[in-house]
């Protein structure tokens, strides 16, 4: 599997994700101002109304200017105390129990084990933290208003935004502690769950026929017993080196020991890089069709992979990746590539052996091309291909960085070599693996994603609860969180790309028992129905711009799939998330300012 989401540099990321949202909120702000002015005019007349509005806005600004950190912290402390008093730490216990049971059911076999474990812990943590945030934030202010404890707060020189801000920060602090505890438990659980060793006995090792003239031939070979659903092939070299193949995505360090019975065994130690954070270096993708013409997209073989398009085997058709930043210093021994190509077979062939493909390097300036490097691609597998420093070419062996890479730029052409078979690909399916980042750091980055979601939900919940009752505020917060997670489906609905029309048309279809594909018969109601649905779609479209894009903050996939979370991506997410929260807190401030608390 690969990560399909584009990661953008910091500023670009902020501009891309933040600007759209800011623009939408800006429009909303201007609209609110106009409405506020109209209301003020209705109450006080046009001039006095304008003055009142101006005074109100300058009061809001003054409030923020005179923010007292001590007051905010005091209110945050109170919120923390309150949440602890409401026994939120029970959540950590629930999580622990969940993990205890999960240990029985989680698949710890081979390659998918790490992914399963990580997905599970991240999903559980997200769900628990989100549910907790919704409940904490939506009911806190309303319960204070109900019990009137708020009276003693607002009778002090507390600005209303400090109440909102303090509450968000207090709950955030509790949530952070909880998340840290759960994160710690998860890390322990995952590393313990995946930890295993293998033993290779003398009887499992076979002698190999080898060429005595070879420099360092393999002299013995063995296969470990099945453990955690996988085996390792172990190769013994003449010079005494032992190589453990990392077939299920990880390897082990091997050591020859004598056991208690005096038997010599090969002991494989703890798994190496089973938890990893690959740093991918992506290129851009162009296609060549069967006539050799450059195209943006390949062939569409159906909607199995909407984002992937295909190249036809045995023709000139190819996918060409252009990498811009492969430097000798970073890859002194050669470039390790990882390919996750979709394989579309028009006939089944030998299902076990995979489809033969080739990769050619090309110098982008002089067009010099290497000999094909062959590989076999299997469905749903990530194939690893190592491009060595010395590459064969029609001119003889050439150095990778001297002859093919120019200023970090090189082209790689992938072809399918079997006739009537297809490789399907998208930009992020092929990348150079520029080493690994520390996994623990990546784990923390993944937790940061959950933390940002928590921040957003807390802000939305507290802001909503300044004007709404607890249960209504909760429903609204859940609605926003869900919309944020399902933004793609919402956009499809808002842009009318779905079948069956808008809500009214759908209702008519249900009532008249017509399926989605049938045209509605002409009738007097058709016009108004379409208009109503268009209005609803417009409204929904506006909503899609306003709700925070929670998919951005769901970075658990990166951790689970073993990809490093880009620092700039993380930073832009943090900037966007915090800005959004701040805007929501300001909205909460306005609402609470206008509200009579007694």
């Amino acid at each position, binding site marked *: 599997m690969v990560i399909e989401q584009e990661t953008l540099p910091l500023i670009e990321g902020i501009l891309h994700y933040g600007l759209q949202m800011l623009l939408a909120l800006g429009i909303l702000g201007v609209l609110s101002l106009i409405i506020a002015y109209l209301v003020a005019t209705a109450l006080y007349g046009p001039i006095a109304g304008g003055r009142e509005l101006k005074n109100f806005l300058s009061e809001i600004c003054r*409030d923020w200017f*005179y923010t*007292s950190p*001590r*007051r905010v*912290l*005091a*209110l945050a*402390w*109170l919120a923390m*105390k*309150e949440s602890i*008093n409401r026994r939120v730490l029970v959540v950590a216990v629930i999580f622990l129990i969940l993990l205890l049971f999960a240990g029985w059911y989680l698949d710890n076999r081979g390659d998918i084990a790490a992914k399963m474990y990580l997905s599970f812990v991240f999903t559980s943590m997200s769900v628990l933290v989100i549910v907790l945030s919704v409940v904490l934030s939506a009911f806190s202010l309303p319960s204070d208003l109900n*019990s*009137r*404890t*708020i*009276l*003693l*707060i*607002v*009778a*002090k*020189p*507390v*600005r*209303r935004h400090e109440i909102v801000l303090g509450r968000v920060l207090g709950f955030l602090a509790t949530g952070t502690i909880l998340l840290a505890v759960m994160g710690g438990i998860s890390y322990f659980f995952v590393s313990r769950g995946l930890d295993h060793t293998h033993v290779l006995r003398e009887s499992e090792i076979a002698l190999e026929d080898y060429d005595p003239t070879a420099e360092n031939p393999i002299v013995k070979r063995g296969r470990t017993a099945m453990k955690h659903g996988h085996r390792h092939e172990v190769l013994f070299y003449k010079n005494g080196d032992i190589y453990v193949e990392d077939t299920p995505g990880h390897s082990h360090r091997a050591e020859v020991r004598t056991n208690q019975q005096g038997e010599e065994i090969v002991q494989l130690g703890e798994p190496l890089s089973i938890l990893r954070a690959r740093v991918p270096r992506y290129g851009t993708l162009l296609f060549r069709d069967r006539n050799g013409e450059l195209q943006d997209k390949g062939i569409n073989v159906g909607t199995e992979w909407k984002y992937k398009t295909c190249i036809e085997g045995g023709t000139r058709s190819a996918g060409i990746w252009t990498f811009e930043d492969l430097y000798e210093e970073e890859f002194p021994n050669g470039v390790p590539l990882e390919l996750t190509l979709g394989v579309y077979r028009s006939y089944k062939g030998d299902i076990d052996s995979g489809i033969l493909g080739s990769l050619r390097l090309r110098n982008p300036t002089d067009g010099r091309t290497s000999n094909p490097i062959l590989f076999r691609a299997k469905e749903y597998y990530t194939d690893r291909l190592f491009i060595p420093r010395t590459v064969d070419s029609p001119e003889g062996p050439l150095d990778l960085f001297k002859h093919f890479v120019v200023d970090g730029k090189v082209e790689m052409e992938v072809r399918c070599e079997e006739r009537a078979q297809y490789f399907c690909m998208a930009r992020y399916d092929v990348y150079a693996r520029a080493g690994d980042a520390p996994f623990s750091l990546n784990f923390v980055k993944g937790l940061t994603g959950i933390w940002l979601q928590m921040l957003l939900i807390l802000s939305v919940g507290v802001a909503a609860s300044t004007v709404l009752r607890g249960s209504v505020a909760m429903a609204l917060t859940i609605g926003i969180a869900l919309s944020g997670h399902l933004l793609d489906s919402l956009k499809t609905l808002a842009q009318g790309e779905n079948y069956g029309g808008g809500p009214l048309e759908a209702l008519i279809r249900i009532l008249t028992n017509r399926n989605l594909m049938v045209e509605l018969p002409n009738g007097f109601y058709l016009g108004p129905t379409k208009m109503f649905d268009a209005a609803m779609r417009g409204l929904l479209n506006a909503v899609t711009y306003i709700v925070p894009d929670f998919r951005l903050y769901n970075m658990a996939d990166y951790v689970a799939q073993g990809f490093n979370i880009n620092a700039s991506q993380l930073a832009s997410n943090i900037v966007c998330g915090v800005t959004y929260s701040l805007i929501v807190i300001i909205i909460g401030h306005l609402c609470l300012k206008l509200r*009579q*608390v*007694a």
Partner: protein
Amino acid sequence: MANETADPPEMTAASSSEPERPAQAEVVIETRNLTKIYRDFWGRAKVRALKSLDLEVRQGEIFGLLGPNGSGKTTTIKLLLGLIFPTHGQALVLGKPATDEAKNEKIGYLPEESYLYRFLNAVETLDFYGRLFNMPAKVRKQRAAELINLVGLEGAKRRPLKEYSKGMTRRIGLAQALINDPQLILLDEPTSGLDPIGTREMKDLILELKARGKTIVLCSHLLADMQDICDRIAILHRGELKELGRVDSLLQVTDITQLQIKDLSDEAQEEIEAVLRKHHGELVGVNHPKATLEDLFLRIVRESDDHLGRRVVRELPTETASENGSPEKTDES
């Protein structure tokens, strides 16, 4: 309150000077045409909680707001604190609009019920409210200790408030109202829930605060308490101001003259009567008997019920009223 001799903490700044006489003193609270109407969803007036209240409270006085339940006392306090917004009119507190949070720096407020966080203990409570006044940690600690001592909760200061009795809750409520050494103290039913000793202590404390130059506005329907300590009172009924003035002058019964004479023999009495007839002789004391505040209160409530509508209130000239014993017309016109 257990430790009556203890100085109320940090009140020394204003305490040395004798409080100014109310009439010349600075106006601390001023309301003009203050009106509060609660409306229903459709904007129709549901309750007229307060109607055109004009009040002035001056520095250093104890001002009582009296009225039966639902007369608008608490509404007035809430309007003064900016907890609710007036429908019409304006309230200025310490020279600032009531909705300005900055005015709260110098205000202490004890609500009718102690709306405190029950999961905090006394020390945490006072520390928390001290932080809301932006007080540094050292000052907070010192003041919290002094106030806990003042209200006599020394032995229970680490117990969560949910374990407190009503009287104890009231005391800690008062302590939080004083945490910032306020200039103006608003007390809503300060003696409710207190036993007679507690009530006495509370009243003493209020008088002591007044002696230190604090302005105190309290509302209550415990009339005897109000009579003891208030300098001036306002009586509200169904949201309208029905009476306003100095307690001593309001309670004067102006059509009766009372003589207090020591060791009076029958002959002397006859003689005095003769003297009185001739407007001669030596009187030991002539003054007007006082009704209780309760009498006045009941009379006004009864009158107001009988004659609904606005009762014109002219305040007594504050200085001369009690000394001259001159009557002041407060009847309906």
